């Protein structure tokens, strides 16, 4: 339905443009392209813009401009809706996967209607100037306070407004976490700014599409000012990275702690399960 209405809208605009071409020249504003559905634009910015552009070059995934001229409509919709299946089975999708360093497009949990709408939007944005980039302020404008705030958000010293977990729960950055370091569940992020770039990092933080992170942050999205502070911090971390600092090894602490606890238990409680009789029998032996 959304598909039909978008094509109808596109056709009516083209007809309208033809009418204007035949009309006498007037002081009228240049004809605008068809209006994109704001809900679809929002969906695209949240779900797609972290990895794709339409006409601004390849990012994590390919540039989607004129994708309808390279692929069949059904293929596009299927890939948007169920990328994991397509990447497992479809030879063209697998070829793209190889081309883009094996970074798999995650399943986005979209309905058929949403996938069709996004396909329409990509076609529309390929023909007309529709802005699909998220609002963006480069970190070149960040101050030292922004960097410090980003560090506090990263380590969890400052709680995120949405209540999400601190980044250091899962990630490590060389100059954060002090003597203890960050988490090792997910990737080390010291040079993430260099790898993803400012815009890529912005999209990755604002609308994470990484497997575990997307589910965790679906309920606790970062606010734009928090994303900015984190980008500022990660930029600083990338620039100031040196050798790995000394960290306190939790295994050594754990082993020492265990030995200490066992010694304390032995000193305080060792006789508890040995039975009173054990103590009495030697005494009795010495008396007889």
């Amino acid at each position, binding site marked *: 339905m959304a598909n039909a209405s978008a094509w109808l809208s596109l056709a009516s605009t083209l007809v309208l443009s033809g009418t204007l071409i035949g009309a006498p020249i007037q002081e009228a504003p240049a004809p605008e392209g068809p209006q994109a559905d704001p809900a679809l634009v929002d969906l695209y910015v949240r779900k797609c813009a972290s990895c794709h552009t339409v006409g601004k070059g390849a990012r994590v995934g390919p540039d989607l401009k004129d994708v309808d001229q390279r692929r069949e409509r059904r293929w596009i919709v299927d890939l948007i809706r169920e990328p994991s299946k397509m990447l497992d089975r479809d030879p063209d999708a697998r070829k793209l996967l190889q081309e883009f360093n094996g970074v798999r497009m995650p399943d986005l949990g979209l309905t058929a209607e949403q996938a069709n709408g996004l396909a329409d939007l990509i076609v529309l944005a390929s023909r007309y100037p529709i802005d699909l980039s998220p609002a963006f302020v480069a970190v070149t404008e960040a101050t030292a306070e922004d960097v410090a705030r980003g560090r506090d958000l990263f*380590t*969890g*010293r*400052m*709680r995120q407004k949405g*209540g*999400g*977990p*601190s980044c*250091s*729960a*899962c990630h490590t950055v060389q100059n954060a*976490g*002090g*003597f*203890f370091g*960050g*988490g*090792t*569940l997910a990737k080390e992020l010291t040079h993430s700014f260099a790898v993803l770039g400012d815009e890529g990092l912005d999209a990755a933080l604002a609308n994470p599409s990484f*497997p*575990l992170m997307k*589910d*965790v942050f679906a*309920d*606790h999205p970062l606010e734009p000012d928090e994303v900015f502070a984190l980008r500022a911090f990660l930029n600083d971390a990338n620039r100031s990275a040196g050798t790995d600092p000394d960290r*306190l090894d*939790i*295994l050594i*602490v*754990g*082993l020492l*702690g*265990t030995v200490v*606890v*066992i010694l304390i*238990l*032995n000193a305080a*409680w*060792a006789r*508890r*399960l*040995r*039975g*009173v*009789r*054990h103590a*009495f*029998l030697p005494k*009795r032996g010495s008396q007889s």
Partner: protein
Amino acid sequence: MLNTLLFAVLPYVAVVLFLLVSIHRYRKEPFTFSSLSSQFLESRQLFWGSVPFHIGLVLLFFGHLIGFLFPSQVTMWNGVPVRLFILEASGLIAGLLTLVGLVGLIVRRLGSARLRINTSSTDIGVYLVLMVQIVTGLWIALGYRWGSAWYTHTAVPYLWSVARFAPEIERVVELPLVARIHIVGAWTFVGLFSFTRLVHLLVAPVPYLWRPVQLVIWNRERRHRRPGN
């Protein structure tokens, strides 16, 4: 399909088994509702197994429970790196105590003929499940730190979704394999619980913690009390 089976079906099978079998066993076989203590068969090595094992396991149980009940407070606590480290190190010590205790109990059981005779196949099952849980738990603590911080945003929402009868398995299916084994092991543990000597947990004599001390003293050797000896 397998994920649905392990993370959305197994939990309910395990909990139903836990409830029904526990109640049935308590009603029909009340005298088996015990730890079936082997202290009278061997008590010298028991200390090195039982005490660290029980202390470690109780701490781990309450650690997981607190994270489940108060995830937001745990996240706040972990906001300061040194506090996060203290919590993680405490959890690791509890895990290592449990491991030392369990290994001690297994060595003790294997080393005594009297204990081997009194070891059932369900006991072996309990040892296996507990060993899997402790090893995977320690692996997570050391290999995928900081578990206390990400547990409250992955496994805890999953556990609450199971409690609401709307399991959100996507919360955990992307976790590392060792963490998924730990979760499946936990549900297996719950399912096996009521078939084993672990049921003593349900009838733990908690008031013993504060009741007055009772000393039982034998002042004669037992053979003197037996007529004819």
